[in-house]
């Protein structure tokens, strides 16, 4: 098969893969009537921002957006905790280290679908259901990300850390002024992964948020589905609101994202 033919085939496949996204954005700008006409139009006959305005004016998507951003911000704390844990496991020898790290690895194979019922009961018993911290907590720390940090940090030379200690730096100082700067490559990868996971997360907000004021974009969007026969442009505007920021992040940080996903393939 010649390279040209292969290129044409792959290009066609890429278009098919990307088409639902193109369709989403195009429909989101259509006036309601046009989205239900036959035959469907690919390019809107007139660009209408009405659906986006409705999301924020008539529906609570402004609140959902803020809640989603809040969950992502809380996840940054998780990122810091995971960095610290990775450093602790990589660079210190301590009692129980083997058992503790073994437990960390063990949690890698326990998905949210297994723990959703008991986790809801645990959060309920401490009064954290229907709160934003409650939504973020179950996925705040990922065993796999701790593992990645540890793998990276074992490569930091001990001499470097020891000489800083001899110069009188405290342990926190060693961490913030030597370990963190050296770890920038892995931090960048993990920050992007954390953002994507937090932004897209669906199961925990669905279970933990009971009131509309606590919904994230994913939950608000899933409930819009009940209106499917009513208003496709509104739904596609909601979907675009969720997908377009991720596409922008993806375009900017593609290299980091691909590296992160590749590492997930090596675990």
């Amino acid at each position: 098969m010649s390279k040209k033919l292969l290129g044409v085939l792959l290009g066609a496949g890429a278009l098919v893969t990307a088409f639902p996204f193109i369709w989403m954005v195009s429909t989101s700008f259509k006036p309601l009537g046009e989205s239900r006409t036959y035959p469907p139009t690919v390019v809107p006959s007139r660009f209408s921002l009405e659906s986006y305005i409705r999301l924020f004016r008539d529906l609570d998507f402004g609140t959902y957006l803020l809640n989603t951003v809040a969950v992502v911000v809380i996840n940054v704390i998780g990122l810091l905790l995971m960095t610290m844990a990775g450093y602790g496991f990589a660079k210190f020898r301590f009692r129980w280290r083997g058992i503790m790290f073994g437990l960390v690895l063990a949690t890698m194979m326990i998905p949210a679908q297994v723990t959703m019922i008991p986790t809801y009961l645990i959060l309920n018993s401490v009064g954290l259901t229907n709160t934003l911290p409650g939504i973020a907590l179950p996925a705040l720390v990922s065993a796999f990300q701790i593992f990645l940090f540890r793998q990276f940090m074992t490569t930091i030379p001990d001499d470097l850390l020891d000489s800083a200690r001899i110069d009188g730096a405290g342990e926190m100082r060693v961490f913030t002024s030597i370990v963190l700067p050296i770890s920038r490559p892995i931090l960048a990868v993990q920050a992007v992964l954390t953002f994507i996971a937090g932004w897209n997360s669906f199961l925990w907000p669905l279970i933990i948020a009971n009131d509309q004021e606590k919904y994230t974009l994913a939950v608000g969007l899933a409930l819009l589905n009940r209106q499917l026969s009513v208003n496709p442009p509104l739904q596609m505007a909601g979907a675009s609101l969720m997908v377009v920021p991720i596409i922008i992040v993806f375009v900017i940080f593609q290299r980091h994202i691909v590296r992160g996903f590749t590492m997930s393939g090596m675990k």
Partner: protein
Amino acid sequence: MRNRAAGVTPYVFVSPAFVCLLAFGILPIVVAAIVSLTNLDVSGLGDWGKVEFVGLDNYRDLMRDPAFWESLRNTALFVVMGVPVIIGVSLAVAIALNQSQSLFFRALRAFYFLPAVTAIVAIALIWGYLYNTQFGLLNYLLETVGLPRVSWLTEPTVAKFSVALVAIWRATGLNIIILLAAQQDIPKEYYEASAIDGAGKWRQVFSITIPLLRFAIFFVTVTTLIGWMQFFDEPYVLTQGGPSGATTSISLYIYQQGFRFNEFGFASAASLILFVIIFAVTALQVRARRNADE
């Protein structure tokens, strides 16, 4: 590695994250195991006095619930349909994308990766619109070539395939990334040497690329398999598990028992069974990896 006793320092670094993992990774399994032996429901949440120990009754009822078996059958069907298609398509695309390092080929990669990073809820919504019986694009395309409309999401057998197709479309992206990366580790000399011996492109793919990718292929097979056991968002958004349970996966079944019917004890028993299944699959993977290493 430092040998001197480090005192409390390492615990300060490790504990916060470790406690989180214990609280939301290990503790839930213990809680599920205990709750699965009780009749905990929504009234029990308000008044613990109403909670009673019921032994293995929940497990017995689970075994007698046809909906539980249907969700297991659906999950098995999704695995049997989905895994070979996902692996086949991702492998073909990954090998094809690796045939040229030109700018065009590299730019194409982004398109294939895109579904892997976008929210499943949004994706399911888009497909729900494409599948719409009255004004969806798919039925329009069928009509233009003279075929009858299809009830993509309301006819039980068709709905299974429609829901699975969305997940297949999404899952190939991640696997293409992994299989592309794995190909970078194959030494170029193998291809050069075989070209001198007169091997064509197809021969190289089947005699060099695929055999050397066998471990990566095995890995993506297992992760894809486990992914299907966690299958939740697509059926939740597209069909709510319907029509009449035709697209209810095991995860969706657990969710419905727990949060629609508030039968936490019963749902915990189902969670534990899912845990055992995933544990068994993971153990097989670890075992196979060990055998491959030896």
